[in-house]
């Protein structure tokens, strides 16, 4: 087994993968990509690895995968024999997939706001923040109902890759001027997630919980 992650420390999408690798106690090699300022993810060399020009990319032996959500599914399916992170029960599986798509879709507006504020990306920041708030409200509503059942996690009684996929850009949203004041259920979920064994922080998410 030789896992290799094409990685950038400040990327929330790469962080999703680093988190699951840590939760699953998997060793891996890091290949740092000069995402900013070098834009190495748009270089011809990198486009051979991922024609979409996006990080992360994961290699496992001869297999090469792009897309953080796809990588989470692969790692959980292959390396988590307990099935906790990717439940096989059809109802739970479907629910996890639904929120995984949400993490790669609607929540990415928070990533856009962060790229605008910190790295100067030219985009409609008001629209990005508004979309992120709309997404956060949907997740906060969901977690509010879950909390009434005394459940902390997005699906089922344990953290799953749905939590791993949703966490980074919710937690990093302050970097894009999106506060957590309006989302009490999100705050409690994030704190529970940060207290998981083998959790590690990244820049923008405080180490101390």
């Amino acid at each position, binding site marked *: 087994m030789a896992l290799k992650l094409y990685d950038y420390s400040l990327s929330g999408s790469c962080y999703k993968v680093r988190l699951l690798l840590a939760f699953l106690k998997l060793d891996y090699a890091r290949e740092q990509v000069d995402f900013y300022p070098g834009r190495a993810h748009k270089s011809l060399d990198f486009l051979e690895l991922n024609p979409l020009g996006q990080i992360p990319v994961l290699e496992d032996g001869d297999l090469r995968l792009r897309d953080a959500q796809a990588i989470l599914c692969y790692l959980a399916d292959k390396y988590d024999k307990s099935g906790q992170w990717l439940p096989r029960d059809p109802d739970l599986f479907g629910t996890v997939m639904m929120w995984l798509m949400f993490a790669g879709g609607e929540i990415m507006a928070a990533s856009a706001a962060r790229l605008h504020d*910190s790295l100067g990306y030219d985009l409609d920041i008001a629209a990005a923040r508004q979309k992120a708030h709309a997404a956060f409200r949907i997740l906060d509503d969901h977690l509010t109902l879950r909390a009434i059942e005394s459940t902390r996690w997005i699906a089922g009684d344990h953290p799953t890759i749905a939590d791993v996929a949703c966490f980074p850009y919710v937690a990093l949203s302050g*970097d894009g001027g999106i506060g957590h004041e309006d989302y009490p259920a999100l705050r409690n979920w994030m704190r529970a997630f940060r207290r998981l064994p083998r959790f590690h922080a990244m820049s923008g998410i405080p180490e*101390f919980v």
Partner: protein
Amino acid sequence: MAITTDPVAINHWIACGWPGKVPVGGYWDTVLLGQNIRVSRPQPDIYEAAILTAGALGRRLPVQSRFCCIFTTLGQDPRPLPQIDEFDEPDRRLINCGSVGVNTSPYRMIENFLDMAHFPFVHTNILGAEKKTEVVSHKIEHRKDVDEIWATDCRFFQPAASKAATGGQMTDYTYRVMSPFSIMLYKNVHNDPGRNDAICMFVQPKGEAQCLAYMPMALVDDVNTTAAIIDFQQTIFLQDRVILENQRPALMPLAPAAEIPTKADVGSVTFRRWLKQMGISFGIYEKAAA
């Protein structure tokens, strides 16, 4: 955003871009102290800057290209750029980390750069550790001949002081505040204690609480890839950024009772006194007092 009327803030050379931001034959529009400007690049090594008013180019501004950055000034009598010899040493690696936006006052950024006490809490297990939090006394002086603030004999326990470091060590620092908008540090080279890495931060104040930070470095490191060095430096700076954007008020308070310093804050106290003495008002909380 209106241009500042503060003559003290205006009379500085201020970073307004880095080469990767300005394509050859193209330009990038930015803001300096509330003034819209255009930085253009007619030839690979030639940069120009001008005031931009309602989309039209106005007065030409002087430009200097130095320390991997492009500098300009809105003032008639700017303070000269500092002398940083390390950038001219032939065996140095000059690394430019682009620019990072930070929504706070430029002085909050300088003050944080000058601060060691936050290492264990903000740069946990990299530049500091929770079990060794003490800031031992160090020397701070306002060097009147160059009008710079220097902090010397700074020592702090660091678990992973740089990309080149392995294992914890006491690290020696020298800090040098070169203007209200620029600061640098000298830090032991990991394998060559006789030399220092030079790491700078030039702040471009777009508005009173909207800044860009440029962090060029002149390093002695023949081991690490540029990607890894940049990744390390950005990791540190984005850890600081959370703090910087959540200090209240964002503007720098200079009244002595506004915030409570301790002995570890002598650098901050000296820096704030220096700002007060120069009478700067841009980015300062107390408008009447400045």
